[in-house]
C-alpha cells in the first residue's frame, strides 16, 4: 500500500503531524542549500538512521529504495545531457559528440540523484510514522475547509475498495477469455478496455453512493461546527524539535549563501586532495 502506517512508540510517532510537516519543509530547504555530494550522502544516511530510530524494519526501507535505484542511475546519465561541461577535463562522450563526462557533471548528477532518493525516503518516512487521519486533521487545522479534509479522508479509504473492485472486473473478464497480460503496448491498451470501462462506470456509481451516504449522515448539517474526534496538539517536544531543525537549517543556509559552503567545488577540492595524497604515497 502506498500510504501504509507502521504503529510505534518512537519520538517520531509522538510528534504532532504539523511538526512533521514543518520538519519536511526544513529538510527541503536544506536539500536546496547543500550541493556537496558527500554532505548530501551523509544527510541521506542520517535519514536512514531515522528509520532505525522509529523502529521501521530495514526490509521496509530496502523495499522503498530498491525500486528507485534505476531512477538513480537514470538521473546521473541524463544529467550529462542537460548540464554544460564544467571543468576542463572531458573524459569521454556518452554519445559521440554529445553528453560529455566530466568530474563536475558526474558529481552534480550523483547529487541530484541522491536528492531524489532523499526526497522519496523522507516523504515515505513521514507517512510511515503518521496515520493519514492525523495528517488530514493537520490539513484542516492549518485552515483548509472541513469538506476538503473529509473528502481526502474518504478518497484514501476508497482506494482499497476500488482495488478490490478492479480485481473483480479483471477476474470477470478473464472468465470470458480476455487476454489481459499482453506484451505489445498497443495490444495491451486495447486488451484493457474491457477492464477500464466497467471500472470507471462502477467508480462513478460509487461516487454517487458516497455523496448520498454522507448527506444522509448529516454531513451538510453544520460543517463549520463539525467535531474532529481525533485531536492533535503541539507539545513541548514539538517546539523543541522545530527549534532544533530550524537552527540547523538557518546555520546551513548562512554557511551556504553567506560563506559559499557546501558547493560542488568543496567536494571537488576534497577529492583532488585525496587523490594527491594517494599519488604521493605511491
Amino acid at each position, binding site marked *: 500500500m502506498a500510504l501504509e502506517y507502521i504503529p510505534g512508540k518512537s519520538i517520531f510517532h509522538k510528534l504532532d503531524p504539523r511538526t512533521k510537516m514543518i520538519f519536511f519543509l526544513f529538510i527541503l530547504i536544506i536539500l536546496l542549500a547543500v550541493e556537496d555530494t558527500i554532505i548530501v550522502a551523509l544527510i541521506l544516511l542520517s535519514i536512514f538512521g531515522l528509520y532505525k530510530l522509529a523502529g521501521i524494519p530495514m526490509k521496509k526501507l530496502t523495499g522503498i529504495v530498491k525500486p528507485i535505484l534505476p531512477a538513480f542511475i537514470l538521473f546521473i546519465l541524463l544529467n550529462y545531457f542537460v548540464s554544460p561541461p564544467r571543468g576542463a577535463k572531458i573524459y569521454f562522450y556518452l554519445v559521440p559528440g554529445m553528453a560529455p563526462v566530466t568530474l563536475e557533471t558526474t558529481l552534480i548528477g550523483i547529487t541530484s540523484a541522491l536528492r531524489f532518493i532523499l526526497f522519496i525516503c523522507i516523504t515515505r518516512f513521514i507517512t510511515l510514522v503518521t496515520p493519514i487521519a492525523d495528517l488530514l486533521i493537520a490539513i484542516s487545522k492549518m485552515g483548509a475547509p472541513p469538506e476538503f479534509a473529509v473528502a481526502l479522508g474518504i478518497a484514501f479509504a476508497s482506494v482499497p*475498495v476500488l482495488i478490490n473492485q478492479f480485481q473483480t472486473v479483471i477476474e470477470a473478464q478473464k472468465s470470458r477469455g480476455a487476454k489481459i497480460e499482453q506484451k505489445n503496448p498497443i495490444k495491451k491498451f486495447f486488451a484493457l478496455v474491457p477492464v477500464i470501462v466497467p471500472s470507471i462506470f462502477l467508480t462513478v456509481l460509487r461516487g454517487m453512493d458516497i455523496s448520498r451516504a454522507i448527506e444522509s449522515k448529516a454531513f451538510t*448539517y453544520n460543517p463549520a461546527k463539525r*467535531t474532529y474526534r481525533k485531536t492533535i496538539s503541539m507539545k513541548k517536544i514539538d517546539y523543541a524539535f522545530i527549534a532544533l531543525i530550524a537552527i540547523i537549517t538557518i546555520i546551513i543556509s548562512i554557511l551556504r549563501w553567506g560563506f559559499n559552503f557546501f558547493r560542488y567545488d568543496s567536494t571537488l577540492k576534497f577529492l583532488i586532495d585525496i587523490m594527491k595524497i594517494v599519488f604521493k604515497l605511491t
Partner: protein
Amino acid sequence: MNLEEEGYEIILKNVTYKYPGSDKPALKNIDLKVRKGEILLITGPTGAGKTTLCNLINGLIPHFYGGSLEGDIIVHGINTKNSYVGYLSTIVGLLFQDPSSQLVTASVEDEIAFGLENLGLKIDEINERIDWALDFVGLKEYKQHPPYALSGGQQQACALASILAMKPLIYVLDEPTSNLDPIGSLNVFKLLRKISLEERKTILIVEHKLEELIDLVDRVIVMNEGKIIMEGNPREILGEEAEFLNKIGLEAPQIALFAHEAKKLGINLPSIPLTIDEGYECFSNIFENIKGKINIPQEKIHQFEKVGKEAIIQVKDVWFQYPSGTIALKGVTTNFYKGEFVAIIGQNGSGKTTLAKNINGLLRPTKGEVIVYNMNTKMVPIHKIISYVGYVFQNPDHQLFSRRVYDEIAFGPKNIGLSKEEIDKRVIEVSKMLNIENLLEEKPYELSKGHRQRIAIASILSMMPEVLIIDEPTTGQDPRGKREVMNIFKKLHSLGKTIIVITHDMNIVAEYAQRCIVMNEGEILIDGSTKEVFMREDILKKAHLKPPIITQLFKKLSSNYNIKPDVLTVEEAINVLKSIFKVE
C-alpha cells in the same frame, strides 16, 4: 400543525413523484401517516416505489435527486421541502440497501464516528456512543477493521450501527438484511425489536423476508407500481392475503400459503397460522383427529444419487491461501457429475466463492488439484478451461463494457478464436434462449438490471460451456425476479448443462437444487441430496443456515405423526396432505 395531525411522526399528503428525465411517476398519490413509536413494514415487488418512498423521508428526494415532486411530506412537524438533507438526517436515520456503498471511512470506529462528528458532539460523547453502538450490533472486536474487509453481514451491521449511534427519532431501513444469511437476518430483526422496545423510536422497514417480521411490526403496507395497494395489521395481510401477495410476486409466509391450500382441500382451519408454532398447533389438531388413520408408507429420506455417472470435475484435497494469508479452503474433496444441479451454500467467508473460482481456473490450488474434463487447472491456461466451465459473476456491472449487446455476447467467443459465422450463430442462439434477441442492438448500460443480468449470462453461455457456475444470482432481487433468473438456469439444466449455483437463499435451494454442498470455514460440512442436507438442522446451524419454514414445520410434525419429514416446498407439503386425506 392541526389537531388531526398531532401524534404522527411522518405524514405524506397526496405525494406524486417523477425522477428527473422520467415521464412515469415512481410514486402516485401516496397518503400515509405513521405514528410515533410505530413499526411499519413496507413490502412490494421491484419497482413498486419502496426505495423512492424511503428517500422522501430524509429529503434526498427532492433535494438530492431532483425530479418533480407534488404533495407534502411532513416529518416530525417539518415540511421536507423547506428543509435540507443535512438537517433532516439528524431526525431521520436512513439505511441504504447495499451496505458496502454507504461505508466511506477507513475503519469501523471512524464509520460510526462520522455522523456523530457531523452533529458536532463532544469527543467523550462520541467515543461513548461508538462503544454503545458497536456493542449493540456485536462488532466490538472489529473496531479497528477497515469496513471493506468485513463480511457482507458485518458490513450491514456496521452501517446499522452508524445510524443507531446518531440516535435519530425515525429509522428508515431499506432491506436491512439483503446480504445476510438466515441467522444473521434474524439477529437484525431481534436488534430492531430491541430498539423499538428500549427506545420507542419510529421504524420504517422495507423487506421481502416477511415470515420473520410477523411479530415485530405493527402495520404492513403493500406497494405495487407506485401505489399503496394494501394496508393493515400484519396477521391480516400476511395471513389472510397470503395468496394475493404470492400472486404479485412476493414471498408470502409459507405456512399461511400452506394453510390456504389446505382449506381448499376442505380441511377446516380455525384461523390462518403464520409461524411454525402456530402451524404446528393448527395441524397437529387436525392430525390428532385422524391419528391412526394416517397410513402412508414411510419412504427413506431421499439419498444422494449421482445424476450422471461421469465425474467431470474432480476436486482433490484442495487447499487455498490468498496472498493476504487467509486460508480459504482447507482440504476440500468432492466431485461434480454431468447434468447435476448443485447448490453451494454457507456463510459469507465460508469459502464458497473460492471453491468456485478454483473450479474454473481463476484461482489455482495452493495444495491439491482440480481436474476439469481431464485437464489439471494448474497445467492449462484459463482460456482453455472457460469453454468447459463458465463463471457468471454476481454483478453484471463488473463485466459489461460494450456499446452494443451483440458485441458483449460476442466478446467471449471472439476471445476463444471462433469464426465470424460461428460467433454470429451462437449470439443469436443464446440470445433466443434468454429472450433477449430483440435487445441485440441496444446499449447494455441503458437496460434494466434484470436485462443486464441476462446479457451477462448470455455472454458466458455463448462460449458454450458444459458447466455453468453462477455466483449469487438472486441477491438484491424480489422473489419474482429470483424465480425468473433461476428458471433460466432450470431451463439450461433441462438442456443438459451442469449447473453449480452459489447462494444463501434457502428457499431457492429447496426449490431448484438436487444436490447441496454446505461449506463452513473452508471445509465441506455436508454434501448430499438437498433433502438429506435440509434434514440436518444441527449441521446447518453450524453454517448459520436454516431450512425453509415449511421444512421445519414438517420435521416437527413428523416427530409425532406418521408423516414424511423431508418436505422442501409448499407444493410438496400440499401433496403430502392430499395423500393423507385420500386415505381418509
